């Protein structure tokens, strides 16, 4: 399974035509204690870099953007009652949504894991 990142610090893991989306460890650390996660509704059609949901910490509120276009298949409802999981496991247990990928060509607009880590060094 390959993992790709956006400049806004979302990740997507691609398995076949399904993309699993979350925010990066770096983003979770920057936000601090996460207190709220707004998830999309199942069936919502999102576009690449369009708003997928939002996340709030004690310090800040920010939108979550979808790394790829597609239709939302599943959401991680456990985050609604336990948003602190984002701080504990942003790039694994705290996945936010799964989408049916509309167009794999869009992957070229994303960074690989290695490129993302290089990108973080420039911030």
């Amino acid at each position, binding site marked *: 399974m390959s993992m790709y990142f956006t400049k806004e610090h979302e990740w997507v893991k691609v398995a076949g035509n399904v993309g699993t989306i979350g925010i990066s460890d770096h983003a979770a650390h920057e936000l*601090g*204690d996460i*207190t*709220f996660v*707004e998830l999309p509704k199942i069936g919502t059609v999102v576009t690449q870099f369009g*708003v997928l949901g*939002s996340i*709030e910490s*004690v*310090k800040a*509120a920010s*939108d979550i953007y979808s790394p790829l276009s597609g239709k939302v298949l599943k959401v991680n409802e456990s985050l609604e009652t336990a*948003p*602190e999981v984002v*701080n504990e496991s942003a790039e694994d247990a705290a996945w936010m949504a799964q989408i049916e990928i509309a167009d794999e060509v869009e992957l070229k607009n994303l960074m690989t894991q290695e490129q993302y880590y290089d990108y973080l060094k420039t911030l």
Partner: protein
Amino acid sequence: MEEQLQATPICSRHRALNALMAPFGGWDMPIQYEGIIAEHNWCRTKASLFDICHMGEFIFEGDFDDAGLEDIFTFSVKSIPLGRSRYGFILNEQGGIIDDLIIFRIAVDKVMIVVNAATAPKDFAAIKGRLHGGVFTDITAATGKLDLQGPLSRDVMVALFGEEVATIPYFKFITMNILGVEAIVSRTGYTGELGYEIFIPAEKVCELWDLLLTDERVKPAGLGARDVLRLEVGYSLYGSDIDEETTPLEAGLECFVNFDKAFIGKEALLRLKEQGVARKKIAFEVTGRRSPRHHYDICSTGKVVGNVTSGVFSPILGRGVGIGFVKPELTTIGTPLTISHERVSMEATVCELPFFKDGSVRN
């Protein structure tokens, strides 16, 4: 232009603890160490140590009446008993709040005035400009201030400094020897928990910081946790909830204004009392975990009727809470409101203060 930040004497300790630092009131201050919620929880259950060296301290010595000190604040200075402190305001001619402050009655003819960091220079100028006698000194740079707050803070203080501390009631203070120097230990704070504010010469404050942290019941807490703690008990934050455009009448703080004495801003407040205020402070709780935030709109039946001045997710209540200002007719407890900002919208209900009622502050 880059802001020239001041550093407190504890700054190197914050960096060694890997604190997240940020500018606050012109000072480079620790926002968090291990995390805002963990630090908040520690303060509500144990004892937390805050570096508050950024706040301003002034000393006035002289005859309060002759020098005009008695007519400057919204409360009587000469009626504060020795060894007690009082909270109130210095107002402008329009009744707007120049600052909220605490005055400590140290001697018959001597007080310490403790003010907010960001406003300290303008406070000093305003007080000095209204005085016509006595000796008025800014001792901020020479003074270190640490707050120890939390239900176990008395036990910690007694263990380190002796039984004398155990007898200090709320809003009283004693002068005592700590680390070989004279320090003021006051039963006041900004968290809603039992706690102390310690004023000690700046050159000793690092040593005191280290000493307090030797007790395993004590952990450092940053300004992030401090803001959550104060908001849960409904304390106003100068610059957010109150400012020079806001009067104590609008801010629900009339109980700290004594109309039986003279003070600058009194005529404006009396006029406002007669006319009625155009907006009033409310406290509100939101449904769910979203945080209301400073500057979000407060709406009623689709129209903007005010704005949020402070808001946060309350870790202890598990929901968002906030303070804001609305038209007086919308201030009744139970009034439904909507908090909105861009794509965000949350249902809220006007409620009573404090949000969190079980603090140990008066224990």
